[in-house]
């Protein structure tokens, strides 16, 4: 199954050029059953990434453009009265999909944001007192625009905490962009992506993640790293949820590297993407200053 996952990775790399690292991290986040926050300018390929991921994994995909008048019901769905059958029937919202791209999440009202974040955390929604489970896997890729803050409601730190990773795709390098321009058939390539891995296989892979071995020494290192953030004035402390997220994503990272154990390097690889938006909610995704400070200041005797 891992080889198929690597095929997925390869084909993603053919669609989004020059970003192998971000693609691996996105897959890592998916494997770790976390949600992804992409912070990028428009046109950097966020939608493409989400779409490509859904296509190559054979997952159902919806995209919601968040606006300030988007209501929770628009997102999770609502009971609609059918005049013909004279009864209410449930009209599922876009949240009932396996990959949900929540575009410009910071444009929506806090109420709508909360509805989404609740769905993300609980993996279920309650409508009119009825609880409906969301499909599995349920993977949210939210994007937010770092530059244009007018009329936006930035996510508070408690809600940022719900996203396992915060990534930025960033500008492609010269060669990649050259390639992009030369073969201007991005959209067609996306449609060409075939399903490499079915949902069951993905679920099985996700279930392998917790079984990746993490030695006591490694856990101690991770805790030292996390502890270092506590009792400091220059950053917010990392919560136990954050340390769980670090461990889980490090395990997923190790799995992607085809290892059955987590190494200190895995932790160091994923740490900035898991930690930075929790340490400083106001920072931008390109910046990993505080997490680098922590990494530098925590001696690694492993």
């Amino acid at each position: 199954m891992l080889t198929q996952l690597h095929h997925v990775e390869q084909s993603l790399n053919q669609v989004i050029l020059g970003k192998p690292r971000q693609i691996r991290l996105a897959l890592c986040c998916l494997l770790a059953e976390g949600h992804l926050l992409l912070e990028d300018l428009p046109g950097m390929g966020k939608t493409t990434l989400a779409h490509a991921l859904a296509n190559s994994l054979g997952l159902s995909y919806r995209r919601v453009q968040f606006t300030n008048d988007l209501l929770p019901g628009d997102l999770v769905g609502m009971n609609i009265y059918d005049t013909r059958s004279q009864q209410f029937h449930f009209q599922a919202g876009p949240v009932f999909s396996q990959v949900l791209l929540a575009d410009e999440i910071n444009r929506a009202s806090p109420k709508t944001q909360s509805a989404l974040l609740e769905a993300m955390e609980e993996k279920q929604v309650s409508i009119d007192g009825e609880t409906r489970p969301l499909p599995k896997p349920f993977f949210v890729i939210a994007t937010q625009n770092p530059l244009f803050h007018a009329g936006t409601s930035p996510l508070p730190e408690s809600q940022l905490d719900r996203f396992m990773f915060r990534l930025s795709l960033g500008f492609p390098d010269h060669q990649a962009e050259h390639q992009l321009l030369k073969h201007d058939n991005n959209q067609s390539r996306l449609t060409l992506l075939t399903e490499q891995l079915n949902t069951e296989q993905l679920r099985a892979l996700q279930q392998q993640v917790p079984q990746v071995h993490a030695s006591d020494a490694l856990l101690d290192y991770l805790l030292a790293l996390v502890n270092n953030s506590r009792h400091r004035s220059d950053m917010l402390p990392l919560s136990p949820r954050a340390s769980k997220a670090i461990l889980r994503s490090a395990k997923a990272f190790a799995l992607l590297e085809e290892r059955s154990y987590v190494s200190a390097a895995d932790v160091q690889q994923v740490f900035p993407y898991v930690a930075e938006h929790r340490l400083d909610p106001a920072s931008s995704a390109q910046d990993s200053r505080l997490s680098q400070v922590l990494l530098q200041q925590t001696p690694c005797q492993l």
Partner: protein
Amino acid sequence: MLKQKRLMVVWLGLQLAFLLLLQEAFTLWVSLIFAALLLTRFATLVYANTSLSLKAVNVIGACVAVALLFNLKQAGVLNFMLQILLLAAVLRLLALRQLFEARQLVWVHYFLIGCCFILHQNMLVALVIITALFANMYSHYLLFAPAGSNLKPANIARATLIILPLWLAMFLLFPRLPPFWQIPTAKVASTGLSDTLDPGSIEQLVQDDSLAFRVEFENGVPERQLLYWRARLYEDFDGRRWQENPLRSGSNYRNVHQGATPAEATLDYRIIAEASQQRSLFALANPWQSSANVNIAPSGLVLATKPVSQRTSYQLSSQLQPVAVLSEQEQQLNLRLPAGNEQTLAFGRQLKAQHPQVPALIDAIASHFRQQPYFYSLTPPLLGANSVDQFLFDSRTGFCSHYASATALLLRAAGIPARVVGGYQGGDWHPEQGYLAVRQREAHAWVEYADQGRWQQFDPTAAVAPQRILSSLDDALSAEQRQLLTSPWQRNALLNNLRQQLMHLDYYWSVWVLGFNDDNQRDLWQQVRQNLQRFAYGLAFITVLALLVVALLWWRRRERPTQPQAYRLLSKTLSAMLRHKPAHQPLSAFLRMLAEQQQNEQRQLLLALITSYELALFNDDAAALSALKQQLKQHRNTLRRLHFSAQNT
């Protein structure tokens, strides 16, 4: 540089303080030399910020030392030593260039601070000396503290708070040797049995829980019934109160039987008596040989040569038989009857008529006490003029002194010479420490009567309250009376235990430190010479043990238990290279960088090493760990020769 200058100023001040404090040890010209030297240092510090050359300092030092040596006779050895010590410190400061040269100076200063106490014990001066101590500690800190650490008042306060109880405990509990120049102070009230015995004096003693003396036996502790420690003889009775006969305090001591061992079984023991301000000491039965610091009186009592003002230890050897009757005069002395107590006298005469034989008479008295309703009590009713009559026929309640006094009078009335003996009975045996502790509360009185040429011992209390003799005073008393004897804090088990431990500690101190005299030393050396071999084994054992402990401590310091084993193994072999590893970098990442720089073979080796290291560390793989050990062992030398170039990274 700033730190260094501050250090210099602190030291200059400190040495100036020494110069002033030790003034008494210096003559004027010596002080002037030191002052001049310090001034020179000050000048070089302020104006040039240099120090004198080592050569110049050596020449100055030699000259001053020679001058001091010539002055040795005048100054005396102690003063000379102090001068040399200060000279060394001042010269070191004078030639100081590098901070590391100054490390030993801190220690010399500590020693000088101690020396100040030789000349000064005044409280105010002590404050100055303590200030000097703090100044030196500050310099110590400046010198040894790692860079970047700063002294916070909160930390100092916390450290002080932590050390304060320890300091207090040291001050309160640390045993102090009495200074040899101590002048005998004003008379201190004496403790223990006095030279008179009136009904009630022993009751008071019994309430005193303090230690009277301790005993070590050479050959095991005798039975409790034998432990009658004689201290005083009361032979004059005025109808109410017994008194020591003034003749007894004379100085005609029995000659100690030198050499001749008596046929009787003897008991050898050592007594460590507490200070009592009295001359009378303690002995069992009939002592015949003693150490030189005490005398044995003809009556079998042991007397110190002067009142015991500090803890005294003496050796005794006793025959377990009664003391001999010395003379007719002594018998007559103990037959005198005072006026009064007619009933008792009549009873005595009547007993004599019934039992002409002395042993039978004694039995009769004992059975009288046993069969009639007599009570043993710490709080007897007050008695009038004819105290013995009242006790024997009225109250019938009394303490050992009542019984002893009544019995002695009965015997005298019956025409048998009898006297009251004051002393102690029993004691607490501490088997672990191997000594018997006799407290004031063990004070006791009994009777001696002359029969068959010896002063036979008879304890009427044993007839009334056998528990007093067989087990302890507490067992002989009722619960209420026991309650009376113990003060509230003694009922606290913890405090009591602490007190016991302190007493034991005190015992060891007195035996091993205070009591360690020339004799003990000589004995020890003789034993060492005799048992050299056994001692050698012992010494070797202790040395090995000490080395083991040191090695263990060193090992534990070196290998921090927080590091996993695989990391320790690798870092030990590659210690030279690991200096280049940034602290936050995982070891395997560093090794990969290292592998990049190596040629084929070494690169393969390193990559294999990384694999087994990662497996051992992150996968808790025991097989990989042993493989890692194997690899490290096999390629130790190759690995040690590896070279890491920081530029290439």
